[in-house]
């Protein structure tokens, strides 16, 4: 073997090795959500593979919690949406600072136009914009916030729920810029501030001792109540709808679940599906 040939083989071998390394780095770089759930969040290791790339869908996992929000039912039950919001915000000790600049919300109301700005508003039928649309985190199958987070403080658990680790979050707010749904809020100031008499200033619904309060400087959002799901209860907002069926919650990837049947038999829409995030919250309009 002459020297030139040997050098060529050496280089070829090295490039192949580098290529292999690069391809694995590439997968690491883009697989996003699966990776985030693998590390450091005890007990929530993801068994499933990385979502398929190069197409607009994440791989269908076995388990993906999702929600169908039936807007006409909310319209028919005046005050029901507000009840859901109150239940959620009490359950999770969501502070109320009383001004839009510091605002924190996990679930809230908006009109059709501003909930679905990407849907056609051209010659919209009368009354559509008066419907109460409940908005919350979409727990995307392909969440850009999880991809953006530099510390894996936000991650997808093995039930497809996008969760926040309030203790790891450094407050860079990259996830807020990444979320195409405005679902994330930041603690611009200390939510635990107290009056002289010891009452908390910002927990308007009173303090729920069963859920931790947050500190300033971290991001928070809807988490589909994993602490309730763990003991067999539905999320607080879903429970607040009682038996109106205005919200249906469950595993959208289990064809036998109630929610899968609702999705199968109704025309539903999602917020900004063009972003390719695969939102898990569906709306019946």
């Amino acid at each position, binding site marked *: 073997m002459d020297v030139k040939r040997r050098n060529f083989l050496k280089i070829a071998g090295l490039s192949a090795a580098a290529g292999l390394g690069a391809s694995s780095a590439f997968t*690491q770089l883009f697989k996003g959500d699966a990776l985030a759930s693998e590390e450091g969040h005890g007990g929530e290791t993801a068994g499933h593979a990385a979502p398929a790339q190069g197409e607009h869908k994440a791989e269908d996992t076995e388990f993906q919690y999702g929600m169908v929000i039936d807007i006409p039912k909310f319209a028919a039950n005046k005050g029901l949406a507000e009840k859901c919001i109150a239940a959620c915000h009490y359950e999770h000790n969501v502070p109320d600072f009383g001004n839009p600049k510091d605002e924190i919300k996990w679930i809230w109301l908006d009109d059709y136009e501003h909930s679905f700005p990407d849907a056609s508003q051209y010659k919209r039928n009368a009354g559509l914009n008066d419907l109460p649309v409940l908005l919350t985190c979409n727990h995307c199958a392909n969440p850009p916030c999880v991809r953006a987070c530099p510390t894996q403080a936000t991650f997808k658990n093995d039930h497809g729920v996008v969760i926040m680790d309030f203790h790891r979050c450094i407050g860079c707010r990259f996830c807020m810029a990444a979320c195409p749904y405005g679902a994330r809020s930041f603690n611009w*100031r200390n939510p635990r501030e107290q009056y002289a008499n010891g009452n908390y200033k910002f927990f308007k619904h009173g303090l729920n001792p069963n859920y931790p309060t947050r500190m300033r400087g971290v991001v928070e959002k809807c988490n589909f109540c994993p602490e309730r799901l763990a003991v067999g209860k539905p999320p607080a907002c879903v429970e607040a709808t009682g038996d109106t069926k205005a919200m249906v919650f469950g595993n959208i990837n289990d064809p036998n679940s109630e929610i899968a049947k609702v999705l199968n038999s109704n025309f539903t829409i999602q917020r900004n599906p063009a972003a390719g995030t695969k939102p898990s919250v569906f709306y019946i309009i």
Partner: protein
Amino acid sequence: MLEKALVGSNKYWAWVFFLLGVITIGGLFYLYQFNYGLGATGMSRDVSWGIYIAQFTFMVGVAAGGVMLVLPYYIHDFKAFGKITILGEFMAIAAVAMCIMFITADLGQPMRIMNVLLHPTPHSMLFWDMLVLNGYLFLNAICGWVILNSHNKGVHYPQWVKPFIYLSIPWAFSIHTVTAFLYCGLPGRHFWLTAILAPRFLASAFAAGPSLLVLISMILKRVAKFDAGEKAFQKLGTIITYAALANFFFLGLEFFVAYYSRVPGHMHTLDYLFWGLDGHNNLVLPMRFSLTIGLIATTMLLFPQIKRNEGTFALSCAMLFLSLWIDKGVGMVLGGFVPNPFDRVTEYYPTVIEIGISLAVWAAGALILTILYKIAISVQAKEA
């Protein structure tokens, strides 16, 4: 060599203490922000990044701009940059230090910053930005310091520095590319979601960084008897002109795509920045001002007479720098949040606290630059 920064004229010390004063006041503002939270700033749920991140982005550009000296000098052996290249490298050091300070000022939980290293996350662009910025700081510190030290001892710099110099060139491009990736990879922000964001960043950086260096060199000529040389100035002028032309060409492309396609998502932010959207127009005046003076400055630089006259050359560089600072250090980041995902407009105004902290970071950058330049110029003066 550090001792050279400890001897200076009264004017030098007055300047140093002035900067220390600004840093102290800004430091007190930061203490307040640290205790109260980022609610002390003008940021909100809708505009969740403000001037800290905008200034950070701009300073990454200034840092990358240093390569416009390193590249001609070390790759093309352009001798006229011999005296000034070290200033470019030291400017990069000060600029990256400012980037790190701006990022830290923007964190809700700065004490947890090491979580980025503790839980390395390759799918987050912020992780890569941290790597490339710190790498660039390291490379410039190595190259700048070792080369200057060799000068000081009157010997040629050691061969082992060369790979670091060469590496620093693509690395400069990488810092601003990765910084653009922070923005242009986010699916919901139409204004940032453009493949030309990184080229735009680089073009604006290669105009703004050298412009600042020209201005600083002219000041140094007066206060420190440091003359970079006419040939170096003229070459920098050419580099600035081409970079500025590329920058405004890219901006024009954005305008064409938005207003010819008439896709609302592409138009909305430009509407907000240059015409006002839904009655909100707080950035219209600065953005129009930025575009106007930027185009005038670029046109001025096309005329050799203007470039050769020190006064008019300095004026065009100052106008261009201000234009690009408004464009990237204000409009680019804030614009990305308007309209928000609900198609609503929330305006942002920085608070006094926020401006005070930002000024302190600028002062800290200026102090680092002053000390490094003092050393560099003392060494070169000894040589001459």
